[in-house]
């Protein structure tokens, strides 16, 4: 018989720590957060630059500072943490969670509810199939960030950055700060992947060239990276002949996208959304297995950690409710549909049991006044613009849903006005 745990949370990054707090506040007695690293905080441990928590704390914090505040809160709320503890299997029939830890060995846990907060991982080079050699000196931006900020070592002296995701932009600046050169940032799309503020603060302020519609087409170097070929691309993202240029560098950092990390979710047998890459969830952040909840970047990749923490609080609270039998089995399941320019969104279902925030991203930028809305007449908000790199929100009150007992679907969209 395994020990009694009401809510078990997998991953002690921003989503998991907040989920712990949410679960305790909602009355769960024993709340345990498992973390595979030796310390709490997830990826924010290595995000030592400022810019976190503007929404939550109304001030600019570094990643570790932001996490520290949540971890302190979690400790005072009585959340238990286990570090150096990896979940390597979830059995789909029994919801048994298998963990390993050097001191405790291999254990099976059977909690009242599970919250998945494993975050996301970076897309590797192989995902975009760039031809050439396979030398050292090619890292995802996050791996390089770990080397520089956590281990204190430099990955190289002259870097090219492929992709303009936020970590890549942050790392461009970090490389400059540490005395390296950054030849440029290359983005295959016509718009940046990261936040505008990071383009300004990390590239423009340091004179780092930013090339849109340009990509790396070839890797050179046997042992160590010696350079890359870059080329402009056409509307189909095919390199344009004659635009190739050799760029000498010893480091290539990749910021070509983030993928929710759902190996465990798949093992657990819950539905994964083909577009978000994360679990299909309702507004309680309940997955298609009623005892399993999910929050943060494991569900959909957010721009801001504040959103991740908010979602963590919700998922933790919902899990606590479930563990004590307080989520009605008859809860409604109203599907959310996206309009033409909506690339992805989450949650995909609304219950009417709680106020819901639906996070969404557009496929193509709208560089003019536009309106984000939810039909039938549930929400409407004017925007100055809408960009793929910056999420939008739709807010729907539980009461609105309750007042529409015949409601069969909700359609969200963004259109120019």
């Amino acid at each position, binding site marked *: 018989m395994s020990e009694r745990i009401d809510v078990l949370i997998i991953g002690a990054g921003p989503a998991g720590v907040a989920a712990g707090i949410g679960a305790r506040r909602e009355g769960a007695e024993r709340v345990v957060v498992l973390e595979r690293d030796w310390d709490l905080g997830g990826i924010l441990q290595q995000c030592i630059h400022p810019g976190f928590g503007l929404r939550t704390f109304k001030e600019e914090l570094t990643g570790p500072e932001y996490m520290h505040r949540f971890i302190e809160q979690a400790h005072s709320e009585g959340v238990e943490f286990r570090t150096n503890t990896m979940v390597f299997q979830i059995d789909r029939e029994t919801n048994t969670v298998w963990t390993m830890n050097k001191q405790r060995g291999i254990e099976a846990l059977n909690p009242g509810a599970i919250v998945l907060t494993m975050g996301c991982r970076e897309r590797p080079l192989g995902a975009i199939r760039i031809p050439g050699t396979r030398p050292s000196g090619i890292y995802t931006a996050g791996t390089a960030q770990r080397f520089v900020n956590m281990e204190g070592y430099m990955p190289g002296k002259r870097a090219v950055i492929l992709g303009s995701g936020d970590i890549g932009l942050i790392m461009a600046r970090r490389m400059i700060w540490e005395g390296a050169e950054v030849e440029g940032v290359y983005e295959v799309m016509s718009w940046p992947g990261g936040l505008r503020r990071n383009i300004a603060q990390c590239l423009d302020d340091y004179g780092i060239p930013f090339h849109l519609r340009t990509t790396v087409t070839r890797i050179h170097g046997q*042992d160590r990276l010696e350079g890359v070929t870059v080329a402009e691309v056409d509307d189909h993202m095919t390199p344009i002949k004659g635009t190739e240029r050799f760029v000498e560098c010893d480091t290539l950092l990749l910021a070509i996208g983030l993928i929710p990390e759902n190996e465990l979710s798949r093992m657990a047998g819950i539905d994964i959304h083909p577009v978000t890459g994360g679990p299909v969830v309702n507004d309680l952040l309940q997955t298609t297995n009623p005892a399993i909840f999910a929050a943060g970047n494991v569900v959909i990749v957010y721009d801001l950690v504040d959103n991740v923490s908010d979602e963590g609080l919700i998922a933790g609270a919902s899990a606590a409710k479930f563990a004590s039998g307080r989520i009605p089995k008859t809860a409604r399941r109203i599907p959310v549909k996206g309009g033409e320019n909506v690339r992805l969104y989450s949650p995909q279902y609304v219950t009417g049991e709680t106020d819901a925030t639906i996070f969404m991203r557009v496929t193509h930028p709208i560089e003019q006044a536009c309106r984000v809305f939810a039909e039938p007449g549930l929400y409407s908000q004017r925007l100055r613009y809408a960009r793929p790199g910056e999420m939008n929100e739709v807010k729907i009150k539980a009461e609105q849903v309750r007042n529409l007992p015949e409601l069969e679907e909700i359609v969200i969209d963004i259109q120019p006005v």
Partner: protein
Amino acid sequence: MNYDVVIIGSGIVGASIARELSRYKLKIAVIDKASELPAGASRANSSMIHGGFDDKPGSVKAKFCVPGNKLWHKLKDELDVHLDECGSYVCAFSDDEVRHLETLLAQGKANGAPGVAIISGDELRSKEPNVSPEIVAALWSPEAGIINNFEAVNAMIESARINGAELFLETRALGLMLDDKGDVRGVSTDKGEFSAPVVINAGGVHSGEIASWAGDNSFRIIPTKGEYFLLDRATKGFIHSFLFSCPSKAGKGITVLQTAEGNLMSGPTATEQDDPEDRSTTPEGLAEVLKGARRLVPNFPVNMNITTFAGVRANTESGDFEISVLAKPRGFVNVAGIKSPGFTSAPAIAEYISGLVREEFADRLTFTPNEKFIPERTNIPRFLYMDMDARKALAEKDPAYAQIVCRCETVTEGQVLEAIRRGARTVSAVKMMTRAGTGRCQGGFCCPRVAEILSRELGLSLDEVTRHGGKSKLLVGKTKEFLLKKEGVRHE
């Protein structure tokens, strides 16, 4: 350093010969310029254990392929390596190609390949539902299999070492040393002289050049690049075996297979080139592979690709293996031009070479059986494949097996430590011995962790750890030191 036999090259051929010769009380040195194994064509190939129908009866290849196949089915247990005994299909899309299958069938029978048979396209699709509806027939070869080639080479050389052979990595052969009679005296290398009356050239793509050191210019190696896609292990079961196209002049054509570990894979191209070390992938090559893969498996899920790679194989003008003992200088053996089905043939070639050496060089060496020869060797524990009780027991015995290093392939710290104990010195050596870094994040998660363990265990600083030896250091220095140096500030 004095040896009885020096083997140049520690690919599957050199390693197999070393193991076979270690059945005798011989002092054996295996030298290889690489920092980790496997390195050459043994590293980047289709990992196929061929059924033996593809080689012209009477050829050297035909002589060794079927016996090699049989040996691998035994060696997989002896050496504890993954061999998926899945069989293979050659797929025919037209009547012409069906006639080709008939030729292959006849060849297979002549070569003694067991169980080869032609089946209908529908029968193939009942086993492999994802293959093209346009395939009309297939040649089924039940004895074909797919091996974990990383494991197999390491297992083979480890077994040789258990039985006394010595391995020298990062040791580049520079020339042949001859005595006053003009016979073999040893090999000079960048790490000094290796004296031995018998030298075996298992130099793969460099075997032509090595043969020329002995004055043998009877054959030429044509470095031939093969490019591949490797997909996420989540594709497991998409197909279950090895699918060939009908061969053309260029080679066996593009294949689609499921690796011994469950990754979908496709390749190779066959592009002749001058540079034996150019293992870069190309846009044209990858496009050709993708086209060929989609011909066999129309919905080949290339969006789940995790890496592309290329290998360079040692093609010969004759198209056959070049195995010979030179009359002059005495003591020199060529095991050259070993390309497909080289991996399959290697153990049979090794048995043959052992016999040949005993017969030819009784004047140069004494062959006393090594009664202490141990054929078995056990692999580093594979946590991923263990049942829960075995995992618990292992973790209880050694807590390092309760710490995950590679999340994609569920590789524990215990496995990484064991790989280092068995000789891994680089991040990719650890990868090939444990699979850490072979998964969908391609080392994004585990590379810093493996590097840290290597640095700790080998007493290196982190910026001395390399990806694959040579100048492939992962890092270029400490952060602040680097900045100060750049700004010309001197450390006190």
